[in-house]
């Protein structure tokens, strides 16, 4: 079992990770809290972003230094971009600044539910793959969209569990299940919408390869403890998947043997 723990690795674009927990770096009460949460999570791969800052409120490179000190691999995102063009240019800026070809591709299609725009997403993914990026697209659970992204060259997909920041969990287990059944050749990561550890555990039990989240940890009363809680939940879900869940039954079935029940007599 210990053996398994060390051998059961997540592979993304030919790179292996022992942790299946991708964590975001936004919304924490303080940078220190963020660092402690990352440590507690055991995450090896953390998301971050690029934003304008006014010279005045300019803090120099403090945040950036802190992030580098975590020693984690970086996954810049294109959060907030609303067109393929915006996402592509922000991806280029990220690649240069963070010196990494890895990109969490977000193209938002609606300000209200912050869902991915399936159309712009595919255009952006195709172009970025062509330019040599390692694209992790934040997508819906739409099977056809997912197949198009795979055809575009994405070697991992990140379907949502629920809209960003809602904590609603796996809203559509039916579609997620059939997505997992249909796409077996590349990893699938549940990204966004998870609110509690049990939801993350359920995602891995279903066969998803990892989860990416931010709000559920950062907005917990105790983000550090919650990061640990998710880390354990993700491991539990993965083990549960590998151990093979019992068959769910419609009717009850005694665990304690019925044979040899005391006090029972023929003449009853």
């Amino acid at each position, binding site marked *: 079992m210990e053996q398994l723990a060390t051998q059961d690795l997540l592979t993304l674009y030919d790179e292996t990770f022992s942790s299946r927990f991708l964590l*975001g*770096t*936004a*919304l*924490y009460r303080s940078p220190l809290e*963020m660092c402690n949460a990352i440590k507690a999570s055991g995450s090896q791969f953390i*998301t*971050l*972003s*690029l*934003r*304008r*800052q*006014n*010279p005045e409120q*300019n803090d*120099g*490179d403090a*945040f*950036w230094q802190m*992030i580098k000190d975590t020693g984690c691999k970086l996954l*810049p*995102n294109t*959060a907030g971009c609303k067109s393929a*063009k*915006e996402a592509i*240019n*922000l991806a*280029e*800026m*990220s690649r*240069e*600044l*963070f010196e990494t070809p890895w990109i969490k591709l977000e193209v938002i299609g609606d300000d209200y539910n912050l869902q991915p725009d399936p159309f712009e997403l595919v255009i952006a993914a195709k172009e970025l793959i062509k330019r040599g990026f390692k694209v992790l697209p934040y997508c819906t659970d739409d099977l056809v969209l997912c197949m198009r992204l795979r055809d575009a060259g994405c070697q991992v997909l990140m379907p949502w569990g629920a809209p*960003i920041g809602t904590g609603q969990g796996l809203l559509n287990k039916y579609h997620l299940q059939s997505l997992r059944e249909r796409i077996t050749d590349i990893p699938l990561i549940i990204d*966004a919408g998870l609110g509690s550890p049990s939801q993350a555990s359920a995602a891995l039990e279903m066969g998803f390869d990892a989860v990416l*989240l*931010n*709000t559920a940890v950062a907005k917990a009363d105790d983000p550090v403890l919650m990061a640990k809680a998710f880390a354990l939940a993700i491991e539990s879900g993965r083990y549960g998947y590998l151990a093979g869940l019992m068959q769910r039954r419609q009717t009850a079935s005694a665990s304690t043997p019925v044979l040899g029940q005391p006090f029972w007599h023929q003449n009853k």
Partner: protein
Amino acid sequence: MLNVSVNNEVMQVQAPCCVTQLIEQAGFAQQTIAVAINGEFIAKRMYQQTQINQNDSIDIVKPIGGG
């Protein structure tokens, strides 16, 4: 003088002005940044030879927390 927008703030710069000079005047010298002009990414190696034009919209971005 060139009227440009840097991170959506109006700014005036002496012409001619390359990206490197703009970054300095905008107060981002020595910092970890990336640049786009009118929505198009500008690579570091192009800073010197890329001139700012009248009414350009420049984005200068820095790392921030993200999900």
